[in-house]
């Protein structure tokens, strides 16, 4: 009898352990199961489409027929003005680039003004689904962009990608399974992103080095990070004046499937809003719920650290202090620290400046979801599994700090102490109010 009990106990222990492991790992990979349509069900009218795009005259509407169509080469609209590309509707006109052999994007729109894309679905481009470059006045409306395979790093990078554009409106679009970002706006100005749905991307909505950006009314769920804004050195322009308000940013817990080397690859799974070296950002009136790390905020210094592709050895401040500023010795020390390349852009500020977080509705994600990445597990262990609203890298801004928070209840801040490999993660509480042009100084924590 004892022997039998022993066996039972043994079996139970094994199943308990298996169950626990399962409980932690089994649904990392939660995404909706969607049957992928066979490419044979798409018809080939590629040359008619190519002619349609090439022969369009300024001022015309290019009408795309209803149906599922397949392409091997990018569709390009270049140097044309006042053009509308209009499909029969989202999911009614479906363009698939799954068999693409030429061109790095599905649709490329370049060098023009007043271009509108509306009412169609674009799938499975080998690079980005739609890229728009050097366009003034650009609208995306009722566009669905998706990769139809399960989220993995072989998928294309950006769903909708306007870069170096002005006066951009993206509304009522749906973006899914971009291995970098669903909607990605780069180096542009005067941008409205409203009433879109982004899900199952690494970054749902991502705004890089752009100014005068209004992001509202969007629904971002089950991405690795719901909304991301970043400011990167050396590019054509910098970030300024970004408003993120009245969005529903929830349950962003998808695993990170961005190819290594990209900034998106260092996004911590479970993040509601990620800010890298933000400039003048106002985050208010959002529902930020079910995200284990509701807001993550990093300086660009930390981004190099978190990329981890190159071993990071922080420059010891004491070592630097004994060297003459501008000396060869100092230069050579800095040279050894590959991750300080940003310092070469003299106009660039690698810190977060003028960020306010106020009047948002909060809830936290489950403990289990915190543990699905190395960074997440590290942060969680160091905070003993406690929740915090804001997770920031703890890199002090030498110019003082201008991050302010305003919350009805206690606002919890985790200082991740990134430069010391998170050895001393600290949790602090703040109920400080956002006042005009001043706020809580986090740099002294």
């Amino acid at each position, binding site marked *: 009898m004892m022997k039998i009990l022993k066996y039972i106990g043994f079996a139970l222990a094994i199943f308990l352990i298996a169950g626990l492991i399962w409980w932690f790992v089994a649904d990392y990979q939660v995404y909706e199961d969607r*049957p992928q349509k066979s490419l044979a069900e798409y018809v080939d009218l590629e040359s008619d489409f190519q002619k349609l795009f090439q022969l369009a005259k300024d001022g015309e509407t290019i009408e795309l027929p209803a149906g599922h169509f397949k392409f091997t080469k990018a569709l390009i609209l*270049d140097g044309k003005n006042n053009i509308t590309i209009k499909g029969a509707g989202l999911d009614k006109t479906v363009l698939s680039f799954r068999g693409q052999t030429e061109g790095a994007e599905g649709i490329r729109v370049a060098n023009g003004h007043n271009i509108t894309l509306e009412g169609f679905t674009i799938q499975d481009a080998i690079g980005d689904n739609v890229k728009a470059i050097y366009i003034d006045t650009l609208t995306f409306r009722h566009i669905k962009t998706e990769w139809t395979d399960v989220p993995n790093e072989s998928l294309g990078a950006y769903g909708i990608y306007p870069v170096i554009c002005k006066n951009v409106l993206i509304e009522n679009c749906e973006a899914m399974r971009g291995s970098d970002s669903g909607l990605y706006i780069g180096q542009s100005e005067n941008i409205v992103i409203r009433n879109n749905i982004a899900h199952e991307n690494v970054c749902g909505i991502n705004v890089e080095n752009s100014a005068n950006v209004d992001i509202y009314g969007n629904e971002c769920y089950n991405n690795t990070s719901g909304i991301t804004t970043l400011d990167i050195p050396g*590019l*054509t322009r910098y970030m300024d004046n970004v408003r993120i308000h009245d969005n529903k940013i929830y349950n962003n817990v998808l695993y990170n499937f961005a190819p*290594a*080397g990209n900034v998106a690859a260092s996004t911590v799974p479970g993040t509601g809003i990620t800010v890298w070296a933000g400039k003048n950002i106002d985050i208010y009136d959002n529902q930020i719920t079910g995200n284990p790390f509701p807001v993550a905020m990093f300086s660009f210094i930390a981004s190099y650290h978190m990329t981890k592709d190159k071993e990071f050895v922080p420059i010891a401040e004491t070592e630097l202090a004994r060297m003459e500023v501008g000396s060869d010795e100092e230069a050579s020390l800095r040279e050894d620290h590959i991750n300080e390349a940003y310092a070469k852009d003299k106009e660039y500020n690698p810190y977060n400046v003028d960020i306010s977080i106020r009047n948002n509705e909060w809830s936290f994600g489950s403990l289990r979801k915190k543990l699905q990445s190395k960074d997440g597990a590290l942060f969680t262990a160091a905070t003993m599994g406690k929740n915090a609203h804001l997770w920031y890298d703890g890199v002090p801004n030498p110019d003082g700090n201008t991050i302010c928070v305003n919350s009805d209840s206690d606002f919890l801040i985790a200082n991740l102490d990134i430069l010391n490999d998170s050895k001393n993660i600290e949790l602090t509480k703040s109920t400080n109010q956002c006042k005009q042009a001043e706020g809580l100084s986090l740099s002294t924590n």
Partner: protein
Amino acid sequence: MNIRSIVYLILLFAFLKGMSSCAPAKKDVDVTAVTTDMEAARKMMQQQSAGKTVDIGLEKLSEYGFFAGALKDLIPSADVIPYELNTPLFSDYSHKMRFFKLPEGETITYREEDVLTFPVGTYIIKNFYYHNDETNLDAGRRIMETRLLLREDDGWKTLPSYVWNDEQTEAILTVEGATKDISWVNKEGKQMELAYSVPSQVLCKSCHVNNNILTPIGPKARQLNRDFAFESGTKNQLTHYSGLGLLKGLPDIASIRKSPVWNDPSTGSLHGRALAYLDMNCAHCHREGGPGNTSALHLTELETDEFHLGINKHPIAAGKGTGGRPYDIVKGEPENSIMLYRMQATSPGEMMPEVGRKLVHHEGVELIKEWIAKM
């Protein structure tokens, strides 16, 4: 195993099963909702395109009269002038014969850095061909296409490519591009196969555009500053054109910058040849005002800033083109440099340049590899 343990097992499975049903509900998406009416779709598009043309270019290449004698011999007429570049663009191992034709009595104006100023009415003519056997040039060649750039009052225009027929007797204007299978024996004696891609007219712009202005890429003074075996003898190209009265404002030839020949070490240092190669293969996009400006990578021959050359520079929008590598160039570590990964890639989502290449340029890769390794 007794009954009790079996019961426990069943309970455990039930528990696990129950938990898995807590996962988010999976939505069924009806992807077959649209059946495609192919004929209606075709009709709708053809109606929109009906009667429209690109309104540029003669239908046949022979109509221009660029060449004397049989078209396929590419023997230039008297007013059609040949030229070569020190370091040309790699185009899938094709060979190129280049010419320009000026309107009568007009001249080119010298410029130090940028493409020379050609007069309105100039044609630039570029023929792409493969030797059937590079180890035996007597075995003939196959001309694939002829591309024309035309200088008009309001700037340069790219004409659609002229695609050569199999008989090599004529080339026809082709707006939408074409794909042609070609095979040849390379200089190592290896049989090569390629689905050669003739670009559509709009694709030409992907390279030939700077600040939204169309422009030729090759004929810069530093690229033309080299000898050429003209019929009248071997001479420096720039001096020759100047002597013919076709080029004005040419300074003392000894004072003009000369681009190295990428694969000839006697013409320049490793650094110089690497930059010349990058300039011709990458800088049409990767420079200020170019479409590749978005990444802060400026791969021009005259660039001196390490960051803009890609050294320790993060990728910006490379996607899977990073190959998992951290920086565009890591000094001394070609195998950790994204630049090399993208030169060796052939998937259009990863490779560089993005268009105009299907094969890896192994010799170019070796040059850049050595350059990075010795940094």
